[in-house]
């Protein structure tokens, strides 16, 4: 059996830990630049605030009804997440951390006659008491089923946050009530395709011959079908696949017309992307840069411009990536628009050691470059100082807004909560 433990409205719940005065108040948390809503407390959900809704659209009404808003405080959320994962790993050492607020536990190592209901409620109570975050728990024979069980545990108040699927009869009944688009990994396109051939519920999908699906669709869906049948086939490894692309992009605090500031932003994103690339031990062959206007603001002229540049030799060199990203900016920039977002995408990866050297490669230069990059990464890691490359800029016009951020209650001694 597998358990999926998922924190309820995680960021909003974190914000409530040290604010007892906000216990029953609606809370929303905004994305990096205070652009849109990325977490809602149950009270905010009831007010009709939806996920990824642009903040400016709901701001006035939400605040006038007594809603509370926070910028995202990732330093704090990451610390709380670590604590949750630590408590879970004490309860079950076989843990796969799936995201900042979800983890799978592999319960197959437990003794056969363990009372799963007790285990689930202990787990839920412990995280609530020890850390202060409410969680929902789904337990089932496979990860896909556990994920579904968790969703129902979270959405249906009758279950009090815990759903356990063990009896085949119960699973069958349960799957009949689940429309296919709720299944992990089944998107809008696939839903339409499957509905076309009369597969409408999770139960319908579980009755299909999985090999048939493998032939007509893909291996991922085949795996999903087998998981719905109760055969566990998604392992820890499946989450660890190397990344196929790296994207770094941000919305600006306020819109930007100037090319030189855009260039600073592009260079900054390029350098962050290059760092991530080196962390993944990859080199990229394709560099894409884009700039765009605010698509939610209908009063401004809209623009979306992007272009890619293919390198002859794969690279992880910040300087080359910055240079080419700026070369793209030169080509796509147009005067007279208000730009709201810029980004850099690196793709077409080859493993650092896996590609072929051409006859004219300058091996020595490459060695020197890789040494330089290592040094830069190392110094930045130490957080004593940051080194960057020429035009990343230190003007703050385009940086993250995060205006209404709560304190870093657990990671900065100057910011710990107070009591009387």
């Amino acid at each position, binding site marked *: 059996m597998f358990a999926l433990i998922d924190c309820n409205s995680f960021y909003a719940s974190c914000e409530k830990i040290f604010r*007892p*005065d906000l216990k029953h108040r609606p809370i929303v948390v905004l994305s990096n630049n205070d652009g849109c809503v990325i977490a809602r407390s149950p009270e905010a959900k009831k007010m009709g605030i939806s996920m990824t809704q642009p903040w400016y659209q709901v701001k006035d009404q939400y605040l006038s009804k007594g809603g509370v808003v926070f910028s995202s405080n990732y330093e704090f959320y990451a610390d709380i997440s670590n*604590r949750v994962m*630590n*408590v879970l790993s004490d309860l079950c050492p076989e843990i796969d951390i799936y995201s900042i607020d979800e983890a799978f536990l592999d319960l197959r190592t437990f003794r056969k006659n363990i009372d799963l209901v007790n285990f689930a409620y202990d787990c839920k109570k412990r995280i609530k008491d*020890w850390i202060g975050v409410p969680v929902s728990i789904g337990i089932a024979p496979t990860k896909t089923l556990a994920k579904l069980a968790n969703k129902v545990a979270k959405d249906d108040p009758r279950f009090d946050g815990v759903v356990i699927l063990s009896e085949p009869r119960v699973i069958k009944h349960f799957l009949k009530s689940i429309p296919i688009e709720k299944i992990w990994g089944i998107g809008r396109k696939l839903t339409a395709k499957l509905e076309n051939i009369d597969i409408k519920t999770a139960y319908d999908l579980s009755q299909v011959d999985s090999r048939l699906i493998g032939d007509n669709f893909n291996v991922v869906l085949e795996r999903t079908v087998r998981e719905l049948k109760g055969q566990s086939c998604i392992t820890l490894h499946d989450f660890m696949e190397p990344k196929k692309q790296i994207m770094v992009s941000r919305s600006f605090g306020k819109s930007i017309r100037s090319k030189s500031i855009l260039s600073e932003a592009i260079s900054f994103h390029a350098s962050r992307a290059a760092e991530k690339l080196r962390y993944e031990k990859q080199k990229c062959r394709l560099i894409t840069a884009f700039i765009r206007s605010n698509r939610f603001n209908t009063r401004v002229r809209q623009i979306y411009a992007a272009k890619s540049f293919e390198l002859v030799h794969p690279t992880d060199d910040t300087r080359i990536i910055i240079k080419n990203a700026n070369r793209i900016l030169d080509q796509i920039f147009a005067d007279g628009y208000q730009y709201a977002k810029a980004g850099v995408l690196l793709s077409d990866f080859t493993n650092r050691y896996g590609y072929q050297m051409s006859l004219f490669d300058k091996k020595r230069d490459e060695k020197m470059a890789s040494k330089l990059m290592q040094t830069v990464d190392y110094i930045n890691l130490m957080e004593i100082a940051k080194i960057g490359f020429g035009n990343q800029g230190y003007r703050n016009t385009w940086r993250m807004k995060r205006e209404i951020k709560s304190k870093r209650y*657990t990671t900065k001694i100057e910011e*710990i909560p107070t*009591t*009387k």
Partner: protein
Amino acid sequence: MFPNKDYKDPFSHKKLKHSGFPSPANDYIENPINMNDLLIKRASSTFLMRFRGNEMILSGIKNNAILIIDRSLKPSNGNIVVASINGEFLCRKILLGSKKVLVTDCSNNKLLDIDKIINFELLGVVTSSINTY
């Protein structure tokens, strides 16, 4: 804040290069005393808070003391706890007699009857406090 891979122990000695004779104490080296180990029994449920006021002075908690609070502990009679009352955190001694009350140690008439407070929630037990002189 707590022991993890980035944790730097202020007491730990720098790794210095050594030439010449090996130290005769080499076989007896122990780790230096670690304040975190001393003060924190369970890192994932331990939080720090700053205490403001003079109400707990007789328990040795001065104004601006740092409280170490373990949320995993159940309070027993006479423990010092932090609780939220009507949306505000309070650090008090808890007495679990026939009546459950929170008391300050300055004046006895400041009893708070827990059962009569609607918005009472226990945060955790204060296991130590750090006063800086």
